[in-house]
């Protein structure tokens, strides 16, 4: 059992580690300048001078991948943080207090859930004007409902357990009960949600590129690279495959890590 747990975690850490190392290296060094264009080297296939080939501007795909992962991790990470933070607080309150509070919070969540993200993103871009990462709060808000639901249903399931009753009898405040007693029990399902949320945020960022609302070019992000590469899918598939596979590695890594950590909880 023990070795299994370690295997999952190790695999996850290994995947994420590779990406992180590439990201850290990109701060100091990339094989080629990620912005410099050279049309003589347009669409070079992988291998040779360029490890993963070049794109439509003759830019080195591998170098852009290293930097792109950095911005993707930033956007996805921040999005999930915002979503988890507000989602958990709202979900705990909603589930624990019930009644009017529950009703109000859940209606708001429903409303948010059916509000078109594109509209929210347009609003954010307008309100935040020149702020570079206006995509982060927009995506963050859109990710709140799912975390709220998970936290709420988890809270509902355990709030009447014996140990919660005991805590209440000992005079623990609702805040203490929610965060000290209930929250730790939500970790397993939250972890799954965070991992999935992380991959969804990565993908959402790339969908936003369609509207030009994501990371702005020429700065690379994995999502944007994937989006732009679609136009060349048939004559230069590597330009799309490289960021696509990188996104996959990141998501897989987080999933394995999540499994490993969860297995640890079950053992305890």
């Amino acid at each position, binding site marked *: 059992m023990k070795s*299994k747990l370690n295997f999952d975690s190790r695999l996850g850490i290994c995947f994420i580690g590779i990406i992180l190392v590439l990201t850290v290296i990109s701060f100091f060094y990339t094989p080629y300048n990620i912005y410099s264009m050279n049309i003589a080297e347009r669409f070079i296939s992988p291998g040779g001078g360029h490890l993963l080939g070049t794109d439509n501007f003759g830019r080195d795909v591998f170098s852009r991948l290293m930097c792109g992962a950095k911005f993707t991790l930033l956007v996805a990470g921040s999005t999930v943080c915002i979503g988890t933070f507000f989602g958990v607080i709202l979900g705990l309150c909603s589930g624990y*207090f*019930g*009644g009017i509070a529950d*009703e109000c919070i859940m*209606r*708001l969540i*429903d*409303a948010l*859930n*059916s*509000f*078109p*993200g*594109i*509209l*929210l993103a*347009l*609003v954010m871009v*307008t*309100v935040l004007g020149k702020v570079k990462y206006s995509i982060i709060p927009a995506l963050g808000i859109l990710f709140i409902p*799912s975390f709220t*639901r*998970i936290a709420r*249903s988890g809270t*509902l*399931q355990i*709030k*009447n357990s014996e140990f919660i009753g005991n805590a209440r009898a000992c005079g623990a405040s609702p805040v203490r009960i929610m965060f000290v007693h209930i929250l730790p029990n939500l970790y*397993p*399902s939250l972890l*799954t949600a965070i991992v*999935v949320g992380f*991959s969804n945020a990565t*993908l959402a960022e*790339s*969908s936003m590129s*369609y509207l030009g609302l994501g990371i702005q070019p020429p700065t690379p992000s994995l*999502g944007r690279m*994937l989006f732009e590469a*679609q136009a060349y*899918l048939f004559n230069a598939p590597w330009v*799309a495959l490289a960021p*696509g596979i990188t*996104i*996959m590695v*990141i*998501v*897989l890594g987080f*999933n394995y890590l999540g499994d490993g950590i*969860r297995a640890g909880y*079950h053992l305890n």
Partner: protein
Amino acid sequence: MKYALQKVLTFILTLFLVSLLTFLAFNIIPGDPAQLILGTSASPEQLAVLHRQLGLDEPLPTRYLRWLTGFFSGNLGTSIQYSVSVRSLIAGRLPVTLVLAGMALLLIVVISIPVGVFCAKKKDTVVDKLLGTVTMINVSIPNFFLGILFIWLFGIILKCFTPGGYVDFTDDSKGFLTYLFFPALAVALPNIAVAVKFIRTSFIGQMKLDYVRTAYSKGNSDNAVLYRHVLKNALVPVVTLFGMILSEIFSGSIIIEQVFGIPGVGRLLINSILSRDFPLVESLVVYIACVVVIANLLVDILFQVIDPRIRIRSGQSS
């Protein structure tokens, strides 16, 4: 009865909240639909004429109130971009999206539950790991990318369907359903992956509990324990998940509608926002809110059917 009344009231409240949020958003974002129609060569006089013709010369709050009162009397107004009634536009598209979503949901249920249970049973074996990896890869492919790969593989290489060859249900019902199959699969796949993982985790969690050991000790077979005892308990969190998957299917189908060229609600919504078609956006957003709220209501009810303890508890606390 009181419960039902309360639900109906909150239902209306949610819809109102959504329409209000949309109205506020339209107050903030720039853009003039008349100018979108006329383009850069429009003169101010031309703009003024079109504003008057389209009823855009009135301030937004007035138009919102008119839409709101119209909504309660069943009149959703006229689309600015298409100059057709909003009702007929939505009525033509909603069935398409519902069929697409229904097909996707069916695929998810039919595939994910058996696979999830199977994985839980074969926990930590090579088969489980393999299936786990396959589902993980599924979930990590962006929706639009998956759609394009499907068109390329099934449409262009294997010629299972003609890309862009969408036909209306009324013209050719078989062709309609055939065309929708691959988009539905593209919508379903990432959700299947999430569902399988979730079901597997939920089952494994339940199988560690005491009652399962008791059931085994009574001499029940593997499958009997799984399907008679564990399934019901394990499905509680899964039902919540399906609630989320429902809205997920709707959002997923938006992009898939774009990629496959299906004239559904999602594509209409994007166009209407980008063309600042206020009455159409308001109506669509409220429709989508209806679907989301009803889906969540169903989940709540299912929740209580499966786990009656929750109702008793929430009854106590409120």
